[in-house]
């Protein structure tokens, strides 16, 4: 299984690469090489840091290359900011468009007495029909660290609760996103990554 991991210079990829390799994937990293995206059997867009950093995907031509791969039905997983990028954009960087695969926008947690960022292990409410999270039982925990989040829509695959309910995971055909870090979420996280690697693609995006 050849997995292209997209590097947009926004942080540390080591943990994601390590987890994918641990699960037996053949991982290639690309920060500009479009051929690696074109030939990939899976694409992973990790992400930590600021939404603005995704501008590099546009500057390098990776955005259209990813769009094409998604249209061909290549399974795609966005992690954290990588999930948020699948939406139209984020109020973190209003001038920077996302991929727009999901029409809505991401926003900061509202002001409350709770801390922002949301950091730590939180549980998932998995919606029936999610293939990515099919093996995740009620009460399993995953590790989050973020200040911005995606809204709950028909494509939401799992909900988490912090200040208000938000999309912890999104899924539509072969395009998936997780707000949490599966590479840092113990056996639950590895199970989710394994589901992604063994994903059988539906016909198109």
């Amino acid at each position, binding site marked *: 299984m050849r997995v292209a991991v997209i590097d947009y210079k*926004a*942080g*540390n990829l*080591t*943990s994601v690469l*390590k*987890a994918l390799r*641990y699960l037996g994937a053949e991982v290639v990293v690309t920060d500009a090489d479009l051929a690696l995206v074109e030939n990939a059997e899976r694409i992973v867009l990790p992400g*930590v*840091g*600021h939404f603005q950093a995704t501008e590099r995907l546009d500057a390098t031509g990776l955005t259209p290359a990813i769009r094409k791969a998604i249209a061909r039905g290549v399974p795609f997983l966005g992690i954290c900011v990588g999930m948020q990028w699948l939406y139209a954009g984020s109020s973190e960087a209003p001038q920077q468009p996302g991929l727009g695969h999901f029409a809505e926008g991401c926003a900061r947690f509202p002001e409350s007495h709770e*801390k*922002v*960022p*949301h*950091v*730590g*292990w*939180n*549980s998932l409410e998995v919606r029936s029909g999610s293939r990515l999270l099919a093996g995740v039982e009620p*009460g399993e*925990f995953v*590790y989050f*660290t*973020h200040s911005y989040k995606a809204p709950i829509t028909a494509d939401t695959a799992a909900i988490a*609760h*912090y200040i208000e309910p938000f999309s912890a995971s999104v899924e539509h055909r072969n395009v998936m996103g997780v707000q949490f870090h599966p*590479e*840092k*979420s*113990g*056996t639950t*996280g*590895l199970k989710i990554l394994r589901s992604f690697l063994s994903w059988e693609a539906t016909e198109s995006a």
Partner: protein
Amino acid sequence: MITKRIIACLDVHGGRVVKGVQFVDLIDAGDPAALAARHAREGADEIVLLDITATHEGRQTLLDTVRRTARELFVPFAVGGGIRSAVDAAQVFEAGADKVSINSAALANPLLIDAIGRSFGAQAVVVAIDARRDPQAVDPVRDAQVFVQGGRKPAGRRVVEWAREAEARGAGEILLTSMDSDGTRAGFDCELTAAVSESVSIPVIASGGAGTVDHFVDVFGRGRADAALAASIFHFGISSARALKEELARAGVSVRLPC
């Protein structure tokens, strides 16, 4: 619901665990990779590895240790000790750490917080603060003195204002050690922890003074801590993070269980 984190801390020197959480029945109780894996398996929510030598010569040993420890660790992993520059931090991240903990170097050069945060994200920067109450101050708790060099030298900063500056510069978490409580096993300094936790929006990890399960209940309640370091408690009848968390759950603290 978000849970309170129990963080296992390993102090290493020359690639070996010298203090902190050790187990007598491990064949090699001093191997950081083996201990970290065991803590993760036994319910720790996160692992912190602190290089207490942090000499220039020791850097390569530390990086090897980090690499080996990170290899099969799939929970958050923070590394501290001797990180003096963004380049030092980059090497530690490359070796497999998810977060770096900086202390004296951040006080000497606060711009280091900005620099690491910019390159690796705020979530990757933990600012560690060693503080001691100042009985001379108007507010001995909020104005507790910050110390550097392992608590040997006052840094000339007050705990709340320094924690706020660290947050403003892009720290993702504060690791707060009470020097008054450290080593006493008489409980965390809940007033100090609460004063800092209520002054910043980023998570605060409490450290220093744990001796019983009730001390953790206290620091998560009264102390408003988001996480706590567990070290010597594992020597005193609590066999693992899981056992500690089971007790905490019985006391009404929200923790990650089963784990």
